[in-house]
């Protein structure tokens, strides 16, 4: 209890009236005075820990050291720093440029799926070249998950349509003339079970 009060006094946390009251008690209460002197003594002792003999040549040479450090820092070779900065800018540019083109295509693909006829016509013209089409789809599948998912949905939707077309082709051909009913039924079952 006394210790807390002494520390508050030493920290200046007591208000004026508390401070006067504490100082009066300090005069009349030997126990409080003893404890106060003990704490005060410890703090003074702490200050004496810093009272040491030092090598003054360190301080005398300090200015010379600082001056030579300043001279060295002004002689810094800027070429590697500038090269490094330029490479960073270049990498950032390539990264941003590639990112932009992918995003643009994702938006386009969404537009395509939305059934915008003008846009589809423009794409049809563009996709006349099958190599370009494949490269474009591959780049989407490799670089952007969202685009990849959209493309996957598209393929999934087309799967049933594809199977239907194959069965139709079989029916319209004369193949049923060479196969029995049972064989034909087995073939249809196999086609339905194919995973594209």
């Amino acid at each position, binding site marked *: 209890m006394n210790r807390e009060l002494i520390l508050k006094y030493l*920290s200046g946390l007591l208000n004026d009236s508390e401070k006067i009251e504490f100082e009066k008690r300090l005069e009349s209460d030997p126990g409080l005075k003893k404890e106060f002197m003990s704490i005060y003594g410890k703090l003074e002792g702490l200050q004496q*820990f810093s009272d040491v003999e030092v090598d003054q040549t360190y301080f005398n040479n300090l200015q010379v050291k600082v001056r030579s450090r300043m001279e060295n820092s002004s002689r810094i070779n800027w070429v590697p720093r500038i090269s490094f900065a330029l490479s960073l800018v270049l990498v950032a540019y390539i990264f941003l440029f590639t990112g932009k083109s992918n995003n643009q295509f994702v938006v386009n693909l969404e537009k395509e799926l939305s059934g915008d006829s003008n846009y589809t016509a423009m794409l049809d013209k563009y996709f006349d070249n099958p190599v370009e089409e494949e490269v474009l789809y591959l780049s989407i599948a490799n670089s952007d998950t969202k685009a990849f998912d959209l493309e996957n949905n598209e393929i999934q939707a087309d799967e049933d349509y594809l199977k239907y077309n194959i069965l139709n082709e079989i029916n319209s051909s004369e193949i049923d003339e060479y196969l029995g009913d049972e064989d034909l039924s087995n073939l249809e079952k196999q086609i339905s079970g194919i995973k594209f």
Partner: protein
Amino acid sequence: MKENKEFELIKRFIDGDESAFNQIVQLYREKIYWHARRMTGNHMDADEITQQVLIVLYKKLNTFKFNSSLYTWIYKITSTRSLNLIKKNNLRRFFSFEDVNENETKQENDIVKNIDDKDKLNKLDEILQTLPPKQREIFVLKNFDELSYKEISEITGKSIGTLKANYFHALKKITEKMSDE
């Protein structure tokens, strides 16, 4: 009186008189070093901070606005640099698991040669390290640099009430640590 002399020295330095800077350095070099040493607890870091502060002083003294006294300005730079270095060292220690002999390396070329004096400083460091860096900063400024709460407030940017509360907690921890030994 002291501030007038400092004002005159700064004016002379800005006007190109290098000897004025030397006088400023002579006035403050030991204060800067010891503040940094009590904060970091070793010679190598204190030396690094002292050099950094003197370089900043040389380069930025022409921007000094005379809104505060020179010593508050110098303590502000020293204190900030010390806290930054402590933070940097703690991070480095955390990520690289520096070896246990790190402290021995940092005491190489120490300006304190006498073994008894070294022991005294090690003891002081051990006690001061029980405080978190910002509490240590306030304790060192008040107890060792003997600055008033008003001056510490200008240096740290904290209110006097906060400083008193911080100093109270620092005193509590330090007296407890000293009683344990």
